[in-house]
């Protein structure tokens, strides 16, 4: 196996960064944990294998160290296969074989320059580098592909070290950018947002070493440093029977808070942005430490609104965040209300939001449901087809609530199902897809109301019985050598517990199994008409440019007054033509969204997560006029060049 053999896999590396956290109870890569730099983690080995195969970087002396640091323990294969169906050890084998072909005299050490000397004086010898090989592993997850700039990577451990790094950067007049787990960059850097979201040269401040985390159960808060991931915070909170409102498992909490304000299905009651943040310590561009609670600073919540507020690089580096946690109710239960049509699902969910029902509340698409719970992408696709064709299950109002609220939901819902059925769907997804053309599914499909027949009528028992399966059955779809591990994994109750899955959010990266995706959507008034207009504004460009677009999830804020929508464009980011088309669709979707009153596309929230809603979303801006939209197009051309250059 050589680098070219694994190129198809390594090119599609999505940089989700889940390999850096122990989300399956396997432990994490020991080499990554020891060395820190992305190059030593499975994610980085994949990127390095790609960069070497595509001759974007020349090997240095560090190659030997990176390759030899891996003991092929296989943890990464279990983690990565669970999420993306990829096996990073293949890249490691290819790197090992490549190393054997490189003449030892070609593996030269990298000369230190004054800047790296300065950085090493701040953080220690091990944690600063100008080695092109290590820098290459950050490509596509903070550094733009084929960038010719001169970069440095530094991994500080304290706020004071970051201050010194910022001062050093300012002395040498070079830009710097903080990197959490690279998840945001991993998505944005594949699109026309790559330029505004990255630096053309300078210092990458990798915050992975800043992992201090302290839960205060008395005040029900946590104080964290920027290297703490959502999964890690949630785990610490759960140890105190508390819950954090956090994004996907792998995202660094502070980066997500700062960038997007952390919007989740729990935002229905836990809120969004500063609803959850108490104080932050941050370093400004001059290297000065400030706190949100300082009396002398300018209003930290002031912000620009609208399309000229786009800023994908944070203006400060947040080094500490104190955020609220929430008590877990003793009688929480999950309930799912399936719908065929989006307007019906929106009506139902909005009614719940207005009544403040649902600690967690969202409208989830068929695409998300099937992709998240299916063990492989192939099964997800078949499940998706079955849900659409036979079950007419296109949307689910997904609720986690107390037992009293559950009764209300059951009363209001035309039909619903609970945790047991979801467990059956998770464990039985492969069996369900094997029934693709079965007479049972055909019978269901012929029912007047298939949803009622399956989830509420006499067929429910047959359906559940048909699905009945065990972890042993489920894991037959996995590679043979991984089955024993996955059988044990799927026997753990949390893997089929919807409340745990909503809290720890280990499944969303399954969206990246086949292709890369680009999130679209944003914030808007919570009325159905506006939401449907926005869905249309996102759907049309996808159709126009041949992009696979799909509704993701919608959550309400402020008792239904506002809504947040995620709609996704799926595309092959290794295909230049697909990238062009997705870029055109992005621009067109902005244009269409800005024409709708009160809508703020998601990108225009970036770097404003610590601001209050009142400063970003209110007052609802009128939709742009035709003349303003023309100027918007000129702005886009100024920023990104003409369509042909994208």
């Amino acid at each position, binding site marked *: 196996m050589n680098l070219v053999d694994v190129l198809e896999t390594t090119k599609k590396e999505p940089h989700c960064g889940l390999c850096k956290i122990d989300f399956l109870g396997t432990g994490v890569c020991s080499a990554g944990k020891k060395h820190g730099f992305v190059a030593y983690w499975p994610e980085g080995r994949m990127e390095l294998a790609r960069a070497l195969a595509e001759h974007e970087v020349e090997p240095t002396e560090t190659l030997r160290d990176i390759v030899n640091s891996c003991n092929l323990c296989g943890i990464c294969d279990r983690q990565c296969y669970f999420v993306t169906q990829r096996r990073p050890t293949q890249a490691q084998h290819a790197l090992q074989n490549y190393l054997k072909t490189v003449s030892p005299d070609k593996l030269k050490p990298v000369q230190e320059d004054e800047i790296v000397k300065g950085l090493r004086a701040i953080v220690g010898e091990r944690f600063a580098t100008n080695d092109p090989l290590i820098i290459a592993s950050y490509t596509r997850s903070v550094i733009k592909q084929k960038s010719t700039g001169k970069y440095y990577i530094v991994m500080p451990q304290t706020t004071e070290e970051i201050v010194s790094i910022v001062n050093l950067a300012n002395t040498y007049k070079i830009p710097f950018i903080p990197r959490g787990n690279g998840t945001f960059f991993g998505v944005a850097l594949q699109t026309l947002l790559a330029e505004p979201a990255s630096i*053309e040269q300078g210092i990458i401040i990798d915050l992975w070493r800043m992992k201090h985390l302290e839960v205060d159960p008395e005040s029900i808060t946590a104080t964290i440093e920027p290297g703490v991931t959502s999964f890690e915070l949630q785990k610490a909170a759960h140890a105190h029977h508390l819950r954090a409102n956090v994004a996907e498992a792998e995202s660094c909490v502070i980066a997500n808070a700062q960038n997007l304000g952390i919007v989740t299905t729990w935002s229905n009651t836990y809120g969004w942005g500063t609803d959850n943040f108490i104080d932050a310590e941050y370093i400004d561009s001059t290297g000065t430490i400030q706190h949100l609670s300082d009396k002398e600073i300018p209003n930290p919540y002031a912000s620009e609104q609208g399309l*000229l507020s786009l800023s994908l690089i944070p203006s400060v580096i947040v080094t500490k965040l104190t955020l609220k946690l929430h008590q877990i109710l003793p009688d929480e239960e999950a309930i799912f209300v399936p719908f065929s049509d989006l307007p019906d699902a929106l009506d139902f969910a909005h009614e719940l939001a207005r009544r403040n029902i649902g600690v967690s509340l969202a409208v989830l698409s068929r695409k998300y449901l099937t992709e998240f719970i299916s063990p492989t992408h192939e099964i997800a696709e078949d499940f998706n087809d079955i849900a659409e064709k036979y079950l007419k299950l296109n949307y689910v109002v997904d609720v986690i609530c107390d037992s009293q609220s559950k009764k209300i939901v059951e009363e209001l819902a035309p039909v619903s199902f609970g945790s047991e059925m979801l467990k059956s769907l998770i464990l039985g997804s492969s069996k369900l897809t094997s029934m693709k053309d079965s007479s049972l599914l055909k019978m269901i499909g012929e029912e007047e109301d298939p949803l009622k027949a399956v989830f509420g009528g006499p067929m429910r028992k047959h359906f559940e019985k048909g699905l009945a399966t065990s972890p042993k059955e489920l894991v037959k779809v996995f590679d043979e050598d991984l089955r024993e591990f996955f059988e044990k994994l799927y026997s753990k109750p949390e893997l089929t517990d919807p409340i745990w899955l909503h809290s720890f959010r280990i499944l969303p990266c399954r969206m990246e199994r086949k292709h890369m995706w680009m999130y679209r959507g944003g914030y808007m008034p919570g009325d159905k008409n506006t939401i449907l207009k926005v869905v249309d504004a996102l759907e049309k460009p996808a159709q126009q440019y041949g992009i696979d677009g799909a509704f993701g999830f919608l959550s309400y804020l402020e008792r239904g007054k506002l809504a947040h929508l995620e709609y996704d464009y799926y595309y092959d980011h290794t295909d230049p033509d697909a990238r062009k088309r997705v870029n055109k669709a992005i621009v067109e979707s902005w244009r269409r969204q800005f024409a709708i009153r009160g809508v703020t596309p998601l990108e225009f929230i970036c770097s404003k997560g610590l601001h209050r809603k009142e400063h970003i979303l209110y007052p609802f801006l009128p939709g742009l006029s035709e003349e303003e939209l023309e*100027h918007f197009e000129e702005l886009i051309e100024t*920023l990104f060049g003409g369509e042909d250059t994208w």
Partner: protein
Amino acid sequence: MVKFLSQEWAEQAKKKVLTELDKAKDLKNMNASLLNVVQNVPPDNTTIYYYIKFTGGNLEELVTGSDEALKEKPADFIVAGDYTTFIQINNGQMSSSMVLLKNRVKMTGNKMKALTITKPIDTYNNCVKGVQTEY
């Protein structure tokens, strides 16, 4: 070759804009004044003010200097940033909109009006970068 932001540079830049750009087609008959506050100019880390004013697409003023009185000039927009950033704009490495997006400069002024002059200002910068400049 003239020194960036020197008086000679300002004169050549103004001449170039007036002779090469069309008020209507290129500069969209814009009415706008812009004060650039260029910080940390070497060798002494001084501040230079770089002021431009367009009326009906005509470049009425293009003035540079460290005289504090320049910052009192009436300006629709004030853009403050590091000397290195203004070099990047002037040599075409980055557009003025991109540096704003990257948080390299701070801008005050009416953002909706800024939207209307994005294109002509970009055209202006592209023209000015043709002046043989040393940094």
